[in-house]
């Protein structure tokens, strides 16, 4: 009898907790998670650096950022650095693999608005703000399967649709289009400024008889190791 009363009270408490879970709780847990995550990831990163050469990831990322800046300048695209950027830290992420959502420590108090583009290294488009609270924002990244962004590829600006996922795919590329590995990929949809870099074409796959071909997107950064990002503001 006592046990049942305790159970009912416990469930009631949890339901209340579930409904009233506050932003401060979410923020505190996220902060703790970030600290623990960084601490635990450090030894793994150290071993990785020893095994595969330290800092090569950072160099690749810097290279990609420079390439993206060159493409942006040579085409006269929108340069995020000319816009207003808000810096934010990634302090938590979606706990399961079927979605890729990051929680940032900047919200409407800092000027973040719904749908804003989120960038890595101030240049590379990572995703968009899906929801905002006063001090935090949730970002749906291009590694989420539900994300699709119209993009253009290379000098000729060949149309494609980027479909998110663990390895983002470039789809609906007309089979006659000539694209190759290393071609730059940039945003072309209305939700972001035109010309934001996403990465480069990796491998192209064309099936005989199909009107379209697909390609994979090469990302120059490790999405699991993002500590800080920038948010574009209107």
């Amino acid at each position: 009898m006592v046990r049942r009363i305790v159970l009912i009270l416990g469930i009631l408490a949890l339901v209340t907790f579930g409904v009233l879970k506050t932003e401060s709780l979410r923020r505190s847990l996220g902060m703790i998670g970030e600290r623990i995550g960084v601490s635990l990831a450090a030894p793994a990163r150290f071993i990785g650096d020893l095994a595969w050469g330290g800092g090569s990831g950072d160099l690749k990322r810097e290279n990609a950022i420079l390439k993206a800046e060159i493409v942006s300048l040579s085409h006269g695209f929108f340069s995020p650095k000319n816009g207003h950027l808000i810096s934010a830290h990634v302090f938590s992420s979606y706990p399961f693999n079927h979605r890729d959502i990051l929680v940032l420590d900047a919200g409407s108090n800092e000027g973040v608005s719904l749908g804003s583009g989120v960038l890595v290294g101030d240049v590379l488009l990572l995703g968009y703000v899906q929801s905002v609270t006063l001090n935090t924002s949730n970002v749906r990244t291009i590694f989420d399967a539900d994300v699709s962004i119209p993009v253009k590829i290379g000098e000729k600006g060949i149309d494609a649709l980027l479909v998110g996922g663990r390895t983002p795919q470039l789809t609906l590329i007309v089979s006659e289009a000539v694209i190759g590995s290393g071609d730059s990929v940039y945003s072309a949809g209305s939700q972001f400024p035109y010309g934001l870099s996403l990465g480069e074409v990796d491998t192209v796959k064309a099936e005989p008889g199909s009107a379209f071909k697909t390609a994979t997107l090469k990302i120059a950064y490790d999405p699991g190791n993002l500590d800080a990002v920038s948010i574009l503001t209107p």
Partner: protein
Amino acid sequence: MRVRIHVFTAVLYLALVIIASVLQRAPNLLWFGIRPNITLALLVALSFFIDDFYLFLGLSLIASALVNPASGFSLEEIVSVLVLIAAFFLRARLPFGPATSALLLAAGATFAFYLAVQISFITSDFIAVFFEMLYNALLAAFIYFLMHRIPRYGETTRASF
């Protein structure tokens, strides 16, 4: 003495669940791009040490609430609890040893979770699901071996305090 052990083990389990829930949301804890479900692996392993269903249910509810601390309950939270309850009742019915059962249950629970939450994820990215099943299974077996060395909830013979 028995009550003390109950309290000690319950607090230990609660602490483990809280730590696992916090780790579950840590942004950098990806293994080759795949996030293990630490809370699921932990609770599957703990189910072999907890006889009291209500304690297990409480821990599962707390874990699912902490893992997704947005307001309200999401489908993922509800499914997590249901899958863990199923694992709790299945654990004694499997014809294997507890470590093997923990391994299989963690893998099965992971698959069942995605089956209920987003079936399209299994077909669109089976590699991710497979590796998460593998991670969770190994993690559950590892936690089982670690927990095996700690006095069991309700056990009085190994009391030392």
